[in-house]
């Protein structure tokens, strides 16, 4: 197992290295860039040239990349040229990261806690009302773009009904940041109002973001439970007169959950792409909205950090999923 983990971690280093080259080359190959973003309509050829030289943008791209790599291995990923000019890109990422984690966890918990029971129920009562309604719901989840759902939710529940806040992570004046996870901060500092306020800000974006994993997890659970219910060992267990709870828990769900775990792992990676849109619609100050802002401003250092760390997170999550998988199903242990 340890060997397996070490091998995967080495793969991770390789993946990140290759990705950093591709990313660096791709960003620099895009038209426009930081010079026009910083100077705007005012740019004269003289000021353009001065800025290009000062930032080392006139060097060949491989040289620029090596300079970047040299600094990056020392923990310096450059400073923002747009979102918050002059601040280290990594700091911006770290500051925004808790928001995205908070949002993703809420979305995933929402999705899992709805999708798995519903998937199970749908399979047990295949063709029934719950089954049909859930399938329809999951179809909507897959078919409706997340930003559109986000927009509808915001319009109805925040603007029209006024039940929930329109955007942001907290109402103004409610912040006491300890960890950066605002709900947790409210609990830690016993500022219940602040915790509740932050939670309210999470509900709509959480639901919007949950729509993607919900649909996927629901359908996989349903299909998987249907398969397992047909298996001989379930019939045997039932025939043996085992209690309903034991059959459901130990026999059906344990086996049915295997593909679900994989699906959840993959969904966690997809959450970031959903978060870009959700966070933008809800002005939720996370990594997703930072990515969008950085792209608009051609803020390459921030873009690079976000994409690279997201890639690392994605690979690590998948590693975790594999480990978890192995724990649930001894047959696949490496």
């Amino acid at each position, binding site marked *: 197992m340890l060997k397996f983990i070490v091998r995967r971690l080495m793969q991770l280093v390789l993946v990140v290295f290759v990705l950093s080259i591709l990313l660096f080359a791709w960003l620099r190959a*895009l*038209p*426009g860039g*930081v010079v*026009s*973003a*910083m100077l*705007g*309509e*005012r*740019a*004269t*050829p003289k*000021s353009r040239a*001065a800025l290009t*030289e*000062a*930032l*080392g*943008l006139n060097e060949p791209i491989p040289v620029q990349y090596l*300079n*970047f790599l040299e*600094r990056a291995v020392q923990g310096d*990923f*450059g*400073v923002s*040229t747009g979102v*918050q*000019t*002059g601040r280290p890109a990594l700091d911006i990422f770290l*500051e925004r990261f*808790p928001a995205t984690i908070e949002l993703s966890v809420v979305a995933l918990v929402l999705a899992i806690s*709805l999708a798995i*029971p519903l998937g199970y129920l749908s399979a047990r009562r295949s063709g029934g009302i719950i089954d049909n309604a859930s399938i329809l719901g999951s179809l909507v989840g897959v078919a409706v773009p997340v930003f559109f759902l986000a927009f509808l939710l915001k*319009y109805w*529940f*925040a*603007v029209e*009904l*006024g039940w*929930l*806040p*329109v*955007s*942001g*992570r*907290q*109402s*103004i*004046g*409610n*912040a006491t940041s300890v960890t*950066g996870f605002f709900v947790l901060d409210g609990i830690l500092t016993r500022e219940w109002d602040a915790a509740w306020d932050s939670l309210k800000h999470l509900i709509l974006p959480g639901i919007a973001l949950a729509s993607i994993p919900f649909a996927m997890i629901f359908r996989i659970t349903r299909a998987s439970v249907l398969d397992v219910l047909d298996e001989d060992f379930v019939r045997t267990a039932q025939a043996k007169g085992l209690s309903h709870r034991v059959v459901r828990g130990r026999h059906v769900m344990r086996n049915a959950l295997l593909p679900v775990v994989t699906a959840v792992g993959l969904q966690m990676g997809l959450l970031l792409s959903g978060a870009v849109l959700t966070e*933008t619609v*809800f*002005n939720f100050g996370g990594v997703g909205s930072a990515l969008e*802002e950085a792209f*608009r*401003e051609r803020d*390459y250092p921030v873009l690079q950090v976000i994409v690279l760390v997201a890639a690392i997170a994605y690979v690590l999550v998948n590693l975790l999923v594999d480990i978890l998988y192995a724990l649930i199903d001894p047959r696949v242990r490496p």
Partner: protein
Amino acid sequence: MSMRKSAPLAAAAAVALVLSACAESERDGSGGGGGEGGSTFTFGAAGAPEVFDPFYATDGETFRITRQIFEGLVEVKPGSAELGPGLATEWEPSEDGKDWTFTLREGVQFSDGEPLNAEAVCANFERMANQNEAAQSGPAEYWAYSTGGFGKDSLYDGCKVEDEQTVVISVKRATSKFPALLSLSSFAMQSPKALEEGNANNVKTQGQGFVYPENSKNPVGSGPYLFEEYDEANKTVTIVRNDDYWGEKAKTEKIVFKIIPDESTRRQELEAGSIDGYDLPNPVDWKGLEEAGNKVEIRDPFNILYMGLNPESNPKLKDVKVRQAINYAIDRESLVSSQLPEGASAASQFMPEAVKGYNKDLEPYPHDVDKAKQLLKEAGAENLTLQFAYPSQVSRPYMPNPQKIHEAIANNLEAAGITVKATTKPWNGGYLDNVDAGQYDAWLLGWTGDYDSADNFVGTFFGNASANDFGTVEAGYGEQLAKELAEADGTVDEEERATKYEELNKKIAEEYVPGAPISHSPPAIVVSEDVEGLVTSPLTAEHFDTVTVGGE
């Protein structure tokens, strides 16, 4: 359905109930934003501020904040583009227009207790003029652009203390932009002590960006508000009333700038009552916002949208008749009424009416397709094909929807027999670069003035003969026009200078025709119905100290 199976439904219903209950209490709060009561003005900002040292900033979102904290020697009179007293109560040029004597306001202190005197003013100017290499290459952009650069390139020639309240600032040549450029937010006076302690000039490059010194995080000015906090995780900037302010104290205790990049979200936040106003509402929303009880304040336009023409890229454009034909082909009036917001007008010249030197006798080119066709025929350019570009991913005050404006103009050109090849690029994704590199035959761009000076418009566009987007030298009149512009700019007498610019505007419109001035669009700002006292500025440079919220 058993109890257990209906649990999710019950839970959902319970959540909905709780939510609706808490929504009631949320709505009880005052409209003052964030439940802080009426003494807070909460403003939706479209972007994050760059740095809080205005000298290193170039963006409107930074200036919107620093404008409340800092003051310049010269300020723009509230509600207009005209210059008025700031920290200097009056100023007088020498006869040759090179030495300017400023009389400083008595009894002004920076918020750290330092006095505003002649020495403090000179400290500021010396600081601005003496930037290190890193700052000169980009961050000190406003100085570089407005004064021509640093050292021998700079317009600035020195600062002299006459007495405690009198200071003389010298420039190398008489120019219309001095002292107008002192009204720019970038050149506001900062506490010399804070500049020194904050190591203000220590800009460094790091990797492919700039790092700013401590001073840029801790602004100390003399204005009606003090900087309190930039909450980066929550995306808010808070400033509070300066109780020691020399003038009338600010009406609200606090202003919170809530950074909301998405325009529709800003509108919804206003509708939900969690902000009290925001800038540049989309013209299509103006009516709806007003119907909902908000105040959409339309400013006087201080901008120009133009279609640039580049004879280097398309040699047929070297012929002035072709350029005139394009001007006749454009139906400005219908463009203005169909694509631009209320209050917009067709342009006859490359500057708005508010600027001294505007020629009131000039009329916009009439829409005359036959004349256009005839001119094209005379020029032997009946089969003219024009690559005509517009930017995407952008909305500017002078150009709310570039694509639609482009479509309308392209239709006009086609009607006159010109074949249009439309092309587009994102604003920051190559458009500005390509315009600058002369890659388009024709393109849409515009300008919002920095201050009331003809030089800031026509001088910016055509003043540099060797490098401008219009290829004026290629078209044959570039050197001459640049010379004439410099002469007008250097005229000390204001009336005489205005007359020269008026004549020049006529010449540009009729003889030189570097492009087609299209329109002036008024940008709007919107506030909720309980906001009073906002004085709008054509330069979009509002001071918020007169604003009250909810009658408090």
